[in-house]
């Protein structure tokens, strides 16, 4: 039946054929097969195959996936970055390890090497296939601020963590994780991946999307449902807040680093002083030692902010853009539907054809709306967990840092008080 769907799209009036295919692009037949096979996902997919788009809408209504964690049947990790040098270029590859019990995988363990470009490809494919589902963002291509080399160790590690998170989000997503593209990404060798990449819409389709988008924007959506307007308002506000938090965190890191620079000078000054003193030499050296240790602890704390909280917040800044794009795509689908509806009223319209198209577009719209709504709920849950744990980790680390410094100073105080008492005892004798 999917074949029929594709054919109809190819003959629709106002949409060029080369990009028509991916409006309902279900990755050929693969996604339909997915619906029948994912019995272990824990979602409320109806495993029995129905073939009409209408019934597919129902299957898209998945509920709370509490069972997801318990029945997680695929584990993915990204690690071991390595430099790969060719005559033309140098790039980093990452090892992607998969462990799974899913039947559509030929074996239970896979290990492949992937580069950043490959991740980009996967993301683009998923977005094309599911324009109104929310794909977790990838780390940016290059860092804009500061002179960070691409091959700087910290940059690579931060990127690796982000890629790992990205892939895990995909693996956790009921629909994305079942796509053929995902499976191929995880399992195929370089050759197979390259040939698979060549199939399907590529650059042109992306360009096409923005062309269509432009046309639709000009026209605008007339009757956007309230809930999507609410979503848009939320995304605006959320985006501003998360962006502010990102900036605040960066500012804190900057100020802390400068504080550390100044603090670094204190300890040696006390040591210098102790060289001129007799009785005071020991306490002064003690001070210097305390300051050095506090310096080390604070350095660690700043590192935590920089390596964990900062990237997480930044990812959600990128998420905001994703959300806006997804909402926009949905709007486009609706706008096109509305345009079609109006076309029906034109005097010399081919009513028969238009009505057929209209019914399919209506289905597509409903499908897109439902997909978005469900994924929205899902996304909010994930966001809440992510940000909650990021802030909790930060708070935890801050507490640890203070606790260690506290121990340092208390120990110093104890040593001084004991000494002082010792001297007093000898004075009174």
């Amino acid at each position, binding site marked *: 039946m999917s074949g029929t769907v594709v054919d109809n799209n190819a003959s629709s009036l106002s949409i060029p054929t080369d990009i028509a295919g991916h409006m309902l692009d279900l990755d050929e037949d693969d996604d339909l097969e997915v619906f029948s096979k994912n019995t272990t996902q824990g979602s409320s997919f109806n495993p029995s195959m129905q073939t009409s788009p209408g019934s597919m809408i129902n299957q898209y209504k998945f509920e709370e996936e509490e069972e997801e964690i318990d029945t997680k049947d695929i584990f993915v990790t990204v690690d071991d970055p390595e430099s790969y040098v060719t005559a033309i270029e140098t790039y980093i590859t990452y090892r992607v390890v998969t462990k799974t019990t899913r039947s559509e995988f030929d074996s239970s363990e896979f290990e492949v090497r992937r580069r950043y470009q490959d991740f980009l490809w996967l993301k683009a494919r998923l977005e094309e296939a599911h324009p109104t589902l929310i794909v977790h963002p990838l780390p940016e291509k290059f860092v804009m601020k500061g002179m960070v080399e691409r091959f700087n160790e910290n940059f690579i590690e931060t990127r690796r963590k982000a890629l790992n998170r990205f892939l895990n989000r995909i693996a956790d997503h009921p629909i994305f994780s079942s796509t053929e593209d995902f499976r191929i990404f995880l399992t195929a060798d370089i050759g197979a991946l390259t040939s698979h990449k060549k199939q399907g819409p590529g650059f042109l389709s992306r360009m096409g999307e923005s062309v269509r988008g432009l046309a639709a924007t000009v026209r605008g959506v007339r009757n956007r449902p309230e809930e999507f307007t609410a979503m848009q308002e939320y995304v605006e506000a959320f985006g501003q807040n998360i962006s502010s938090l990102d900036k*605040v965190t960066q500012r804190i890191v900057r100020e802390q680093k400068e*504080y550390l620079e*100044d603090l670094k000078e204190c300890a040696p000054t006390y040591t210098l*002083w102790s060289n001129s003193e007799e009785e005071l030499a020991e306490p002064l050296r*003690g001070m210097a030692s305390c300051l050095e240790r506090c310096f080390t602890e604070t350095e660690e704390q700043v590192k935590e902010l920089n390596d964990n909280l900062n990237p997480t917040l930044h990812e959600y800044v990128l998420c905001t853009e994703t959300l806006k794009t997804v909402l926009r795509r949905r709007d486009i689908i609706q706008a096109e539907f509305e345009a079609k509806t109006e076309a029906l009223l034109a005097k010399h319209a081919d009513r028969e054809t238009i009505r057929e198209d209209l019914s399919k577009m209506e289905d597509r719209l409903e499908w897109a709306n439902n997909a978005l709504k469900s994924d929205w709920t899902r996304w909010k849950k994930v966001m809440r967990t992510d940000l*909650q744990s990021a802030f909790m980790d930060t*708070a*935890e680390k801050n507490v640890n840092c203070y606790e260690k410094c506290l121990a340092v100073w*208390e120990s110093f105080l104890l040593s001084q008080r004991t000494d*002082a008492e010792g001297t007093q005892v000898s004075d009174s004798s």
Partner: protein
Amino acid sequence: MADSGSGDIAVIGNTDLTPSESENNIKNTMVEKGTNLLKRMEIGVAEAEKRTGKNAVNMQETYTVYLVETRAVDASSEGTTPVPDSLWRRYSEFELLKNYLLVTYPFLVVPPLPEKRAEFVWHKLSADNMDPDFVERRRVGLENFLLRVASHPVLSNDKIFYSFLTEENGWKESVFETGFQAKADSRLKALNATFRVKNADKRFADMKHYGDELQSVISQLLRVRARAADRLYGVYKVHGNYGRVFSEWSAIEKEMGDGLQSAGHHMDAYAASVDDILEEEEHYADQLKEYLFYADALRAVCRKHELTQFELEMAAQDLISKKQQQEELATGTLRTFSLKGMTSKLFGQETPEQRETKLKMLETQIEEGEELVKEKNTECEEFVKSAWVDIERFKEQKDHDLREALISYAIMQISMCKKGIQVWNNAKECFSKM
């Protein structure tokens, strides 16, 4: 130094001592060591007030006056605390007192005054002399100065000091009546003069060197500390932005709202806590500054020793040359070159009468010279003796006070860490409810 876990807290005891309480320990030590003056009298600088008046060139000026209070010790032990006697003094009068003491007791390490102008400031601190925080810190410094003088075994007996505390009017005149101004000018000249001493007491040379090092290292410390304080202030205050954004964010969230809102409050509290922290740090800085200025006083004493030693050496040198002249005249041999000798060679010998007169003159001069050398010698010896006693006293005081200062700094750090732990634990709990 062992790393202490939470089990060691009981052993440490009172870490809740605030830095100002620790400072009181210093004051109590001063009182305990007890001079006669402090046994009889409580001294304090209680308040500060702004005044306007006409100055020496008949122009309007605004200045601050400080209330110096004194109270008899035994009066308060009767149960009722009588109203203390008090009078108002300006900073310039404190300066006058100090200069008088410097000139009158050059062999003592005279306590320093708090700084005239705010130095080593960081952006939050004002460099304005009229700023209330500066005035308050100066008030504390002036009280400290008075207590230092009152607890000094020698200075506490000075009459001018006593009348500074007790007689508002006419005090200035009585200071000038002592004629210390004349001595002040020559002292200043001497301190700035360059001269070479052959046999300075090594201990004093070492002390001067130490004074130099102390001044240099404390200046550096104060500079670095001020910069670090500025930065720390920034770090804490930026966290206040978390509070603001969490609050805005909580408005659009249903489940996360409450957790975010309350976490935000803790961030605000964190940002606000830095003000107290840094105020206590300033206190520590003031303690360091006192010894920065003490270093000056120490060096002044060493310089004075050099001066007296130099004068002695000059007098001795002069005596030797006079004796040589006498010998030459008596024996007729010319051992050292002298213009007299040359001219007499050129223009003929002197008459016996002339020689007699000269010899007699030299004899008188030699007598006087010997007296002078004896005097200077005694002066030098006495100076060395009394100065060294005071320097030893000063060393002990410095070691004790600076150790107390380090302890109070540690206490302050402990307090800061405890507050930080509390805030972030609270925040963590709020986040968990997000």
